[in-house]
């Protein structure tokens, strides 16, 4: 009947295999895809080669900064995915977190309260798809994805009508200097390589990598968390306190997302911009990072430290997006979402499934 024979592999692929295969696929698909789309849109081949193969990009401050942001986001979604929540709502969550910082700035609440506010808001927002999935068996992917649009439109409304910084263009007022993290000073030699990155983010990232690797594969809490991805039935019958586990999962990821968006917002323009592409589900502050880091999370689920490597590669990809202009950026933004997800799917396919084409074995 079916000429393709598919079976799930019983053994776990080795780390080396995972890295090599997913790296190759990731790189090929994302770069090839972006490359061809840009060609089709009228770019000159010459210009493209200049953009793509500029070695200075490898260690530029923007690249490193974005690597850290993407890595933080990836680890956040890794926790969600480990708990069975495929969280496609990254764009909306990042936007809402920035909103929390804006509110803290407007009402002079200080950086600590800003974080608390952000964490609470994110937990509430992300609990909707997660809880619906666990208790109603609905599609967490679909709901979290649709919520992006809602969040982005809400932010648009707020920067246009509620907290508007300029009359000429819709955007928020600048974030108060009191809301700040500790950045590498410009005199420091590291500044040339790392750029305007905060010490806190670096520390949180490193701690998170170690902590997650240990937590998920060696502790009872980790096992309980992961059981929710297998089945709610199994989790409840194994004595897992489901509401508490959901809360812990969302708490940990909310903390990481808050740091990532703080890094994006406070280390950069310090204003929230209008989301022109809200209709497509892409925020102007996050440029599709929410989707991309989810893809990385799915790939690094067994070995969290691999996400650092992928984050770096994606940051390079983003460098290329920023070197382009106009509506091309739109195409690329959309394409990066699709292409990064596609490469995850294909990697998963090659790594975890055995596919055989059967035309020899006819009846």
């Amino acid at each position, binding site marked *: 009947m079916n000429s*393709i024979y*598919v079976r799930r592999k019983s053994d776990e692929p080795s780390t080396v295999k995972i890295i090599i295969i997913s790296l190759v696929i990731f790189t090929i698909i994302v770069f090839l895809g972006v490359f061809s789309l840009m060609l089709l849109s009228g770019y000159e081949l010459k210009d493209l080669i200049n953009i793509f193969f500029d070695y200075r990009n490898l260690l530029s401050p923007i690249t490193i900064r974005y690597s850290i942001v993407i890595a933080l986001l990836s680890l956040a979604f890794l926790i969600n995915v480990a708990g069975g929540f495929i969280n496609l709502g990254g764009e909306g969550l990042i936007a809402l977190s920035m909103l929390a910082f804006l509110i803290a700035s407007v009402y002079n609440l200080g950086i600590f309260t800003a974080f608390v506010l952000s964490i609470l808001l994110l937990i509430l927002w992300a609990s909707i798809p997660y809880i*619906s999935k666990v208790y109603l068996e609905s599609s967490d992917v679909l709901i979290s994805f649709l919520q992006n649009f809602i969040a982005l439109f809400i932010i648009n409304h707020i920067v246009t009508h509620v907290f508007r910084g300029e009359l000429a263009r819709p955007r928020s007022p600048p974030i108060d200097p009191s809301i700040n993290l500790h950045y590498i000073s410009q005199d420091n030699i590291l500044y040339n390589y790392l750029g305007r990155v905060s010490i806190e983010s670096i520390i949180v990232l490193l701690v998170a990598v170690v902590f997650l690797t240990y937590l998920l594969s060696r502790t009872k809490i980790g096992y309980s968390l992961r059981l929710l991805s297998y089945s709610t039935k199994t989790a409840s019958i194994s004595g897992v306190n489901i509401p508490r586990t959901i809360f812990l999962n969302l708490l940990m990821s909310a903390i990481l997302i808050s740091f990532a968006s703080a890094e994006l917002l406070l280390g950069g323009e310090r204003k929230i911009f209008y989301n022109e592409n809200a*209709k497509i589900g892409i925020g102007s502050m996050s440029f599709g990072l929410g989707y991309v880091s989810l893809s990385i999370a799915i790939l690094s689920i067994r070995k969290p430290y691999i996400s650092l490597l992928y984050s770096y590669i994606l940051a390079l990809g983003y460098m290329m997006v920023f070197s382009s202009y106009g509506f091309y950026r739109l195409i690329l933004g*959309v394409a990066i979402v*699709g292409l990064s997800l*596609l490469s995850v799917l294909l990697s998963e396919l090659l790594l975890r499934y055995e596919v055989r084409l059967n035309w020899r074995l006819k009846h």
Partner: protein
Amino acid sequence: MAFETLILQILSMGSILIFGILGEILSERSGVVNLGIEGSIALGAASAYAATIYFDNCLIGLFLGTLSGVLPAFLLILLSVYLPLNMIVVGITSSSIFSAVSIVIGNLVPRLPQKRLILSSEEFTIYLIFMISLMSSALLYIVMRQRIGLIIRSVGEDPYTAYSMGINIWRIRTLSTITSGFLGGLVGSLMILMPMVSVIWREGLTSGWGYILVAITPASLWNPLIGALLGIFMGMISFLSIAIQTSGLIPLSTDLASLLPYLLAVFLYVLIRGLFLRKLIAAPRALAKEFVLEERYE
């Protein structure tokens, strides 16, 4: 706004959405959630626009636009029907990629007002298309009650049993998904060509409609007749936001108006799932479950 014009607008948007819902109902009955429909709609709109401008003929535009809707469905079928990758993620992937492609296509021609689909008069066209959409809904309903409908339902309920009964799961899912893709292309094309609804194409014109349709399909209880009602209802919602804004009754900004359909979609979806869990309604049991010939557990 004259009452008659309002009715025409609702009917025109409504019939377009009915086609989309029918396509999604069909594919979901066989177990496939076609999130690629977002890409089909985007691609359909861009292709219809480009073809209409290029050939200066809206019928060619309609034809090519509908045809192009099949492309995102192909990717979904390859990766989620023949291979067992998560069909929701694949659907979003496919939609993203083909939305990007649609932007490229739409920009291949100069930005001009396109010829709309008008047969003898605007009203006649709208009523005609509306009738066709209702008839399609009735047709699907009748088909689902035949043996072929039983076969499709069995694939959506319990693919393994259907397989052991000798039914070709892959063929059924492929056919239903391709049809859904065509209908998505049709939706996109009509959004560009249908009087009262169409505007000059621009990037991101149709964005979000595909996802919204998927989210509200469960509210039709997978019944084509209820789906037709749902389409008309969503047609009303789409014009409601514009109407509220222009009438100035409630101070609703463009952004808040834009989020209404999404909010409604999420709300309806969660509500239906809640009702489903209370056994009040029944979804196809194998919906969104990729089918793999597994022999042992897992």
